[in-house]
């Protein structure tokens, strides 16, 4: 999800030239093929390192920006129990962000630098968080579909060849399944509720379904670096495979809820053993990625504003720490 593989460019990477360099790369690939974990101090090709930085930082940014659409409903949560669950979930997402930024730092980049890139609009994050949360049902839909898609994407990443990322995923996946369950529970309560609540749930599914399918990234035919990422075992399952799996799991859940998936072409295909589904509106996807989704500007603006307004606080904290240090030394 959070790793849509949104930007194929990782900058020019010098190819291995000398025999010695080629030999080193071959040894690296052999370790990957033998399912060994790569750790921060191990030698790694520059392309591997940069691909990981891009993917993990996009993932981290997604966790952080993803707090905003749900945060939009914290003050309006309909019961105190729901409010508490939502706060706990959002707190988890902040933790995921911090944890992933740390994983990224093991690759030799500073979190501050990554955050600067995000605020400058140069970094990508999952397209899904550029959609608005208009009703309470959207909070349920995010848990059910968005966290559901995240799990689908992240479970194979637990076996990613890069150790710190794989370990981060193990921890994160446990929490994501709680997120998914609470979302499904919200949608179920609405679907079994009054006609107005049912309408709210259906309308929300109508809006989120296609954006949720887009979370797995562009179709394999358009996906620039899938092959290399697969070879390096950064990625283990392709975008289209994950998308299919998500549809297969989610359709029966929607049926149980009595909700209709907004895809007239959706039907079970007994020969394939999978659901067939209609074309994903990819032009919308590319538009959102390019910054023209319904909320791109607002999301980044909010992050920028908080960053700017917090500047004097961060400066004060640094100044205080420095005063302390000098005092301690004098004492």
């Amino acid at each position, binding site marked *: 999800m959070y790793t849509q593989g949104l930007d194929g460019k990782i900058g020019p990477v010098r190819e291995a030239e000398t025999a010695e360099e080629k030999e080193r790369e071959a040894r690296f690939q052999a370790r990957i093929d033998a399912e060994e974990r790569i750790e921060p101090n191990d030698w790694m090709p520059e392309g591997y390192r940069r691909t990981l930085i891009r993917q993990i930082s996009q993932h981290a940014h997604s966790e952080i920006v993803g707090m905003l659409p749900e945060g939009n409903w*914290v003050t309006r949560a309909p019961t105190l129990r729901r409010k*508490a669950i939502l706060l706990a979930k959002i707190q988890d997402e902040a933790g995921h962000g911090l944890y992933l930024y740390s994983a990224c730092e093991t690759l030799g980049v500073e979190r501050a630098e990554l955050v600067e890139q995000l605020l400058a609009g140069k970094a990508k994050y999952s397209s899904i968080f550029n959609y608005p949360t208009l009703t309470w049902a959207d909070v349920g839909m995010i848990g059910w579909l968005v966290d559901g898609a995240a799990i689908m994407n992240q479970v194979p990443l637990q076996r990613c060849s890069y150790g710190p990322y794989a370990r981060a995923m193990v921890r994160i996946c446990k929490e994501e399944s709680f997120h998914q369950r609470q979302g499904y529970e919200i949608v179920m309560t609405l679907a079994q509720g*009054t006609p107005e609540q049912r309408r709210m749930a259906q309308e929300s599914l109508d809006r989120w379904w296609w954006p949720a399918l887009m979370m797995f990234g562009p179709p394999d035919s358009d996906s620039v670096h899938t092959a290399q990422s697969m070879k390096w075992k950064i990625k283990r399952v392709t975008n289209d495979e994950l998308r299919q799996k998500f549809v297969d799991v989610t359709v029966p859940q929607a049926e149980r809820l009595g909700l209709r998936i907004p895809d007239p072409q959706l039907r079970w295909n007994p020969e394939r053993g999978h659901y067939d589904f209609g074309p994903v509106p990819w032009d919308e996807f590319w538009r959102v990625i390019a910054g023209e989704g319904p909320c791109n500007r607002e999301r980044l603006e909010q992050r920028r504003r908080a960053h700017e307004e917090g500047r004097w606080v961060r400066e004060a904290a640094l100044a205080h720490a420095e005063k302390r240090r000098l005092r301690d030394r004098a004492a």
Partner: protein
Amino acid sequence: MAEDRARFEYLLRLGDNSLILGHRLSEMLGNAPALEEEMALVNVALDLIGQARLFLGYAGELEGAGRDEDALAYRRDVLDYRCALIVELPNGDFAHAIGRLFLISAFDFELYGALRESADRRLAAIAEKSLKEVTYHLRHAGEWVIRLGDGTEESHRRMQKALEDLWMYTGELFTPDALDEAMREAGIAPDLARLREGWDRRVDAVLREATLTRPAEGWMQSGGKDGRMHTEHLGYILAEMQFLQRAYPDARAW
């Protein structure tokens, strides 16, 4: 019976304070100066909502009119809320938000510490649990007051200003009214005046370390905990918080 009614009213004060302060802190989501701080404040908000649920849930049982925590949180208007004025104030800048959290946490620290001895054992148990949380809130907010007070010129100015703005809302916390007196006589709640000493000591120590000046004691605002006169802010908080329950009165579950 009359005693149950009084205890119900008293629990509303405790529950409403936690609920409204938790609401204000949850507004910091997406607006905190750093990610770590955002997490910390969400965590505090979560603790406070948890406390509100325990206090209001118990209040509803004592009342015996079939109102649960949500009926009390979502179906009362301003006139029936019993929170202190200080929790209703808007967050303001970070100095103001964290300064408020500090002043209230220092009060709650004393209050919950004393309530552990309450004759009402259920209340004592809630206080015991809440005290652990508030101890952390107090330390966290106190550290920020020190950092901001003894940070840069700007942060010092802002922190001092926040204290000046907040000070006139602290008196209400310590000024007993008839209900507080009745609770004290029944051995349910402590003598508020006696909590003051510990609060003064704790607050003064932090202000000293923060190189901040304790504001002069002047006129103290009141009217929140007895419901006599809330701030204008409370109505907006409730309008937002209660929106779904009000807009969909037929819904039985969420």
